[in-house]
């Protein structure tokens, strides 16, 4: 088991390096004049030259890349020339906010989706199944800003049950902060609901068709035992895998929701940095996102290995 985790962590490294290379290329190589990109068309040539010198643009690419990567790993993320803030506290602070929002959404929606999906799968083609499938399907494909805006109009503007902003006043306790996050979390939950429920349903349906379920039923086991002991265990494998992959869309969703509600999370930070061409923040932020995404996939793989002994053996 630990061998599996170690192997996966080791495999992550080359991919991460390639990803960082991609990010670096996109940010500093392709745009051409990095200094100009950051400062925009209205800066003077001298300012641009100064920034370029500071960024070490003249050095060979490899050296620049290695230096950048090295700095990232050691935690020295420099200061943004645009905002004059240090990059690392900015990114990490924003990350914290995002994790709170994302965490809240996931904690609620993962159990709910799995439950709905399994129920739909058990009652395949029945009324409940069609109802659950159609509704989760519809909710899941609606972009977060669409559902967010509709919910905003209904619950915050018209009914005034929930606050319009997402950021609780300074110094609020956790409960208050979560209260403010209800409205932004719901679009995220809608998105994840569909994917997870669909996968749970598919997993359940597939497992139900397997011969070992027939064996279990013909053994005379009570229905509950068949479902919990045999169906769920095996149906969760594809579901968990999907959840790991869905984190990617969740992060995308965070970007949208935070922008919509003006919440200072990592998503909004990245959008703002992109708009202002704050390259250093962009690079650091996107790399952090990549690491997070990979870790979440790794966690999903670990859980799958716990559930399915055949995976463990192959490692």
């Amino acid at each position, binding site marked *: 088991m630990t061998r599996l985790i170690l192997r996966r962590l080791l495999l992550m490294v080359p991919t991460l390096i390639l990803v960082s290379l991609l990010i670096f290329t996109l940010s500093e190589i392709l745009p051409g004049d990095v200094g100009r990109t950051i400062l925009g068309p209205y800066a003077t040539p001298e300012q641009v030259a100064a920034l370029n010198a500071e960024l070490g643009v003249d050095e060979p690419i490899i050296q620049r890349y290695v230096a950048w990567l090295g700095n990232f790993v050691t935690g020295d993320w420099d200061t943004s020339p645009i905002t004059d803030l240090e990059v690392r506290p900015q990114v990490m602070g924003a990350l914290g906010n995002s994790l709170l929002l994302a965490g809240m959404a996931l904690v609620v929606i993962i159990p709910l989706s799995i439950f709905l999906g399994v129920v739909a799968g058990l009652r395949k083609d029945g009324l409940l199944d069609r109802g659950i499938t159609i509704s989760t399907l519809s909710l899941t494909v609606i972009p977060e800003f669409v559902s967010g805006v509709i919910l905003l109009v209904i619950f915050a503007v*018209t009914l005034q049950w929930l606050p319009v902003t997402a950021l609780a006043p300074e110094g609020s306790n956790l409960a208050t902060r979560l209260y403010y996050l209800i409205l932004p979390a719901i679009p995220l939950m809608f998105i994840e609901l569909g994917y997870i429920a669909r996968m749970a349903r598919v997993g359940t349906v597939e497992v139900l068709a397997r011969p070992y379920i027939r064996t279990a039923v013909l053994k005379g086991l009570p229905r509950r035992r068949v479902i919990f002991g045999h169906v769920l265990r095996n149906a969760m494998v594809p579901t968990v895998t999907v959840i790991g992959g869905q984190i990617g869309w969740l992060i995308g969703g965070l970007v949208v929701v935070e922008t919509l509600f003006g919440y200072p999370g990592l998503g909004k930070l990245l959008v703002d940095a992109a708009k202002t061409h704050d390259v250093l923040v962009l690079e650091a932020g996107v790399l952090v996102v990549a690491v997070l995404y990979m870790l979440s996939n790794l966690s999903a793989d670990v859980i799958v290995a716990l559930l399915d002994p055949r995976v463990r053996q192959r490692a």
Partner: protein
Amino acid sequence: MAEPVAAGRTAAEIQSNADAALEQRRQRRYLVHALLRSPTFMIGTSSVVLWILMALFSTWFTQSPFDVNPMDTLQAPSAAHWLGTDDLGRDVLARTLAGARSVLIVAPLATLLALLMGTTIGLITGFYRGITDEVIMRLVDVLLALPVVITSILILSLLGQSVAIVIVVIGVLFTPLVSRTVRSAVLREREREYVMASRLRGERSWFVMAREILPNITAPIIVEGTVRLGYAVFTAATLSFLGFGLQPPSPDWGLTIASERLFVQLAWWTVIFPAIALASLVVGVNLITDGLGRVFSK
């Protein structure tokens, strides 16, 4: 009645084979009928068709989506403007109906690009395997390591924005997922005996890929295509909402919602109607996908 005819066919067998063939044809027609009778599929198709028509013809019968009216800004829905006006006095109904255009150009083209590239890559990696497969799939993993929206933002902000770039970016970023699906389908077909038989005839690799394997994996490709289309609509709208897609004064829905949301407390109609419009299109595409998936799996 039955006269055995050597060690082969009898009259009865010939009859029963004909019946079998008829039965197969009947079942295939049943599939088409099932599609037509599936409510999800039909609702989805109607919605998409409606929006295609709107994108093409809405300006023929509505007011202009671009006419600025400084006198009548943020008017509530009325007889003159059925869905009200926005912050520049433009007719919301006209803009809402015309907003379908941009999405219906970007999303299908991006999907097509992803399908073409993804199928090619999937075929090559699935068929050849070995080093080619390892290297390419590793690159694919790299592309998949970042959420699509994030990478799009990175590229669009630093490399410039235009409709063409948005299409290319979404198409390229969706290619890895398509190639994965195609690759697994190819891996399955590759082991089949008819592929082995064609190799025993000395068929060239491209022949086996294009004429033997490809015709048998069209079903998963079609399904994947409709799934990608749904995601493409989603992503295109999200990007224009974030400000990385189309620019004003396009009546694009995402753009409209982004710019009008500041006025949401005063004039909810400027935001709600584009939102509902977008929702209906996206749901429509996904109902088609669901309907197709259901019928194919039976």
